């Protein structure tokens, strides 16, 4: 019999029982909760007279609606305010731990989970949010769920699921200067498309993945959902275990010893069989920039915008044309010629300390270009913010003309006051470039933090890899 994949192991470890039709009740170790997708779930729970099955496995935070300035003044928009207050009240009523808006630990749900050690290897982690795939970086089975499922997890600590197929994506070799985890995952999405991972759990492997820090691994798994997979995974190694040590919710003492011994087994067996395998050479990956309204419409920085006329598939061709029109771009235009209005450094994809360091290294001693109306840096959590300030990164950003904000989702989805105006063009470190995502009529280009910072300084996209190589030689 052949060996097991990491996904097989995690799945089997959590099955409570399996029905004749193949659907299984699986046990959930960690449930993260935020304000947007939870109110109806709590309401139903209340109406049915049910209680959370295990209060302690839930951790809540408000992130989508929170303002990134003047927090002490509260939330101005009444609809947003009510959603956040509702979360506060629900958590109080049901005895669920919540990091309130004014708590130093508050931040984007996918940043605070790992930061607190609430996400650990070998767990099942769910949240009413598609980017829950982020937590798979820890060798945890993590995926987003809907509001009815949020209620289901609250009430039963379980979910009914069918097992997905196994996809292995190996990124071999070493990536060049200025090529980050974001560029790796954008290149993968460019290659397999936004539906490429449909029906699969993706395991990311290979030397280039192993070489990433936990922050970088989270960036890669974060965008597994943009590749069509509900969950992404990376095997546990010393980097994972080191990261988890001494986090507030991580096991201590004898439990820590036991846990770490178990976690070391969380990798696919050598003879494991995957349903599909894909290889990518890291050395061939350049910094990436999306030009369209889907993350798969992406090209390397040194390339031109592709011509829809050369696309053989009629549906894709049509999609490319619509995207060019919405983005106000032309086929054949060089990416470096695209000028920008705003820059956003933040989101659950790229708002961790390493991301801010990379951006600050580029911005240090420079000034924003005159055409940049606004450049926001929004740390992923209060603790990331504090760490960055201790390292002086806030000073670097502000001296260059960036705004240094309070943590939250911010302009990733523009549910708070941070947004693009109609027609504005933005270099963004977030994960979705859909029409109107960052504000009605706004135009989003997804890039890495270093690329976003470089674009803010130059006023247009620049090839950060050639800048860095020039610096080294």
């Amino acid at each position: 019999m052949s060996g097991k994949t990491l996904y097989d192991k995690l799945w089997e470890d959590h099955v409570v029982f399996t029905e004749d039709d193949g659907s299984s009740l699986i046990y959930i170790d960690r449930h993260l909760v935020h304000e947007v997708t939870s109110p109806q779930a709590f309401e139903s729970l209340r109406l049915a007279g049910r209680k959370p099955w295990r209060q302690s496995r839930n951790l809540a935070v408000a992130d989508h609606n929170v303002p990134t300035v003047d927090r002490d003044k509260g939330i101005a928009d009444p609809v947003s305010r009510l959603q956040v207050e509702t979360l506060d009240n629900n958590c109080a009523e049901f005895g669920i731990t919540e990091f309130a808006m004014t708590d130093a630990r508050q931040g984007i749900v996918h940043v605070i989970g790992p930061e607190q050690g609430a996400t650990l290897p070998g767990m099942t982690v769910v949240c009413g949010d598609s980017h829950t795939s982020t937590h798979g970086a820890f060798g945890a089975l993590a995926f987003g769920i809907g509001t009815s499922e949020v209620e289901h997890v609250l009430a039963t600590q379980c979910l009914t699921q069918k097992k997905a197929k196994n996809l292995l994506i190996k990124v071999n070799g070493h990536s060049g200067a200025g090529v980050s985890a974001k560029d790796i995952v954008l290149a993968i999405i460019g290659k397999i498309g936004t539906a490429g991972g449909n029906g699969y759990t993706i395991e990311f492997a290979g030397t280039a993945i192993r070489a990433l820090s936990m922050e970088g691994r989270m960036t890669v798994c974060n965008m597994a959902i943009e590749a069509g997979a509900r969950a992404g995974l990376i095997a546990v190694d010393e980097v994972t275990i080191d990261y988890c040590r001494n986090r507030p919710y991580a096991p201590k003492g004898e439990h820590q010893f036991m846990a770490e011994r178990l976690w070391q087994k969380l990798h696919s067996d050598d003879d494991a069989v995957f349903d599909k395998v894909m290889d990518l050479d890291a050395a061939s990956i350049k910094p990436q920039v999306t030009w369209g309204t889907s993350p798969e419409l992406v090209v390397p920085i040194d390339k031109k915008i592709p011509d829809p006329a050369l696309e053989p598939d009629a549906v894709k061709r049509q999609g490319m044309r619509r995207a060019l029109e919405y983005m106000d771009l032309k086929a054949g235009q060089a990416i470096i010629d695209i000028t920008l209005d705003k820059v956003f450094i933040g989101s659950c994809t790229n708002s961790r300390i390493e991301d801010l360091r990379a951006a600050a290294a580029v911005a240090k001693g420079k000034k924003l270009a005159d055409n940049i109306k606004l450049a926001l840096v929004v740390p992923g959590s209060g603790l990331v913010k504090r760490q960055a300030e201790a390292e002086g990164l806030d000073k670097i950003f502000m001296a260059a003309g960036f705004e240094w904000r309070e943590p939250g989702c911010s302009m990733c989805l523009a549910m708070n006051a941070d947004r693009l105006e109609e027609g504005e063009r933005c270099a963004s470190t977030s994960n979705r470039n859909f029409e109107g995502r960052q504000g009605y009529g706004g135009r989003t280009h997804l890039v890495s933090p270093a690329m976003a910072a470089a674009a803010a300084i130059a006023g247009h996209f620049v090839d950060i890899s050639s800048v860095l190589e020039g610096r080294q030689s």
Partner: protein
Amino acid sequence: MRAFTKITALVAPLDRANVDTDAIIPKQFLKSIRRAGFGPYLFDEWRYLDHGEPDMDCTHRPVNKDFVLNKPEYQGAEILLTRENFGCGSSREHAPWALEDFGFRAIIAPSFADIFYNNCFKNGLLPIALNAQIVDSLFKELVEGYRLTIDLETQKITTPGGKSIGFDIDENRKYRLLNGLDDIALSLKHADKIRAYEAERSKRAPWLFAD
């Protein structure tokens, strides 16, 4: 979820075809953070003469006296009799939430929109599709105080005149509705299995059960 076994209840006739979910519950109410409390806004644009907004107190709003649900003789109706393609339009689960919250238990029509039909079962509402001629005859014989008996177990509707009308329903859905089982209730039937799993797992991974 409330179980549905057998009811004898007042019938309200809504003599329109293609009633869409935006008519059942207009889009401005989707901003709500709640799943309950949509009843006062059910058919908002038909029921009231002013424009409704979420959280509005409906007790003082000007009502459309001609709308069927505002008529005194239909107060307390639990069965809605209507025409084909009821619940078409968007997939909003707010539509069955509003009907259920208002007090309806069953809807009889010649046909229903697919998604709406599915959503009903998740919320304890019984949608019954009957042949258009039978629906038409019910409309015709409906007089003040008209009550129907709906027995889900035997899949039969009985008219005040004693006539019996059979209806079809998927076995699995019938079972869930008869027992008031939503997905959560079904999972909770396996509570002992979940506990056994927890007991076993806590030996392997005690740090997950330390609190």
